[in-house]
């Protein structure tokens, strides 16, 4: 369940709970995380995941490796998520296009938005690299949702279930650093 820490604030806004996100990943049947470090999610997600015996962490050298690893794992129903920052998402677009869209593989991605201001939506960010993410995903027809407020994490189970049920990618855009457990 949500912890008290999820309601903590950093500056003027509340941040989601890393512990709750991990809890919901497990509830979704995710036992595999493929990752490159991302400063937005490093303390709240990747470090705790690396210490969690219920999750196998595969560290990759480049994000498009993770697209293929997650897709291949799905062939026998193994559920995985790819954790990265948006620069890696942008770098992996061809793999996501080919494997996720053309081949209809359920690749689920948790993407930290580097340099996004926590109090602003991505569309209002001063950072060009942040502002373009959602338009790019829309142009590619890739399902995506935002994790900003603590309550946003409660959609994780449903959206992961949908991605696997419909065999298609989904991107969670994490715009505020999850609070470390």
């Amino acid at each position, binding site marked *: 369940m949500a912890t008290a820490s999820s309601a903590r604030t950093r500056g003027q806004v509340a941040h989601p709970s890393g512990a709750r996100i991990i809890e919901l990943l497990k509830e979704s049947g995710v036992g*595999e995380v493929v990752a490159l470090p991302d400063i937005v999610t490093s303390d709240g997600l990747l470090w705790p995941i690396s210490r969690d015996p219920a999750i*196998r962490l*595969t*560290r*990759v*050298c*480049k994000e*498009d*490796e*993770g*697209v*293929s*690893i*997650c*897709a*291949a*794992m799905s*062939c*026998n*129903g*193994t559920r*995985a998520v790819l954790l990265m920052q948006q620069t890696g998402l942008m770098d992996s677009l*061809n*793999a996501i296009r*080919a*494997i996720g869209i*053309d*081949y*209809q593989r359920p690749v689920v991605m948790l993407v930290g938005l580097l340099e996004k201001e926590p109090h602003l939506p991505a569309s209002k960010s001063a950072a060009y690299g942040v502002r373009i993410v959602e338009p790019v995903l829309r142009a590619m027809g890739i399902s995506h949702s935002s994790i900003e407020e603590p309550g946003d994490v409660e959609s994780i189970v449903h959206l992961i279930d949908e991605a696997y049920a419909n065999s298609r990618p989904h991107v969670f855009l994490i715009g505020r650093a999850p609070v470390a457990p």
Partner: protein
Amino acid sequence: MTIRRDEALRTLVPLVHDNDIVVAVYQTNFDWMGINPRPLNYVAVGAMGQATSHGLGLALANPERRVFVFDGDGSLLMNLGALVTVAGAGVTNFYHFVFANRVYEVNGDQPIPNAENVDFAGFAAAAGYAMSRSFDDLDEFARAVPRILELAGPQMVSLETVPGEPYPRNYDYIHSAEARKTFEDALNGRK
């Protein structure tokens, strides 16, 4: 010396068991489908360079099966970091064959960068594979490969190859939903 690719693949046919997974790329994939069509051939990697990563995902999720990756040299060069990832993942069921023809064969036979000098087995050794070897002689390869497949992975075998008998490039099939369904049905024991 060099090895004809079709002869190298025919050498591997009796060593690949029914429950093994084979991930192959480009012309090696087309040749393998012609020589040894089987439901557990994973024929589509989507993006060039991704065979190693698909193979790793399959190896991690299916530890009871051996996974063979029949890679291209140009393909592997696009994703060299994957060698480090594979070694780090410690997949003992992972057998990586690089068919090194030193050109981008399906893209006009253009040479790979630094074609004369690249050492693929050296890359794998440096990345931390359990073992890696190179062969440019078919008989030597045929004598050595059964023993290599008895060893725990990840293993790398780099083969200096030239084209052999040409097999048709059936892109429509490898990219088809039918191919993916055939593989997944076989993987999951569905008829």
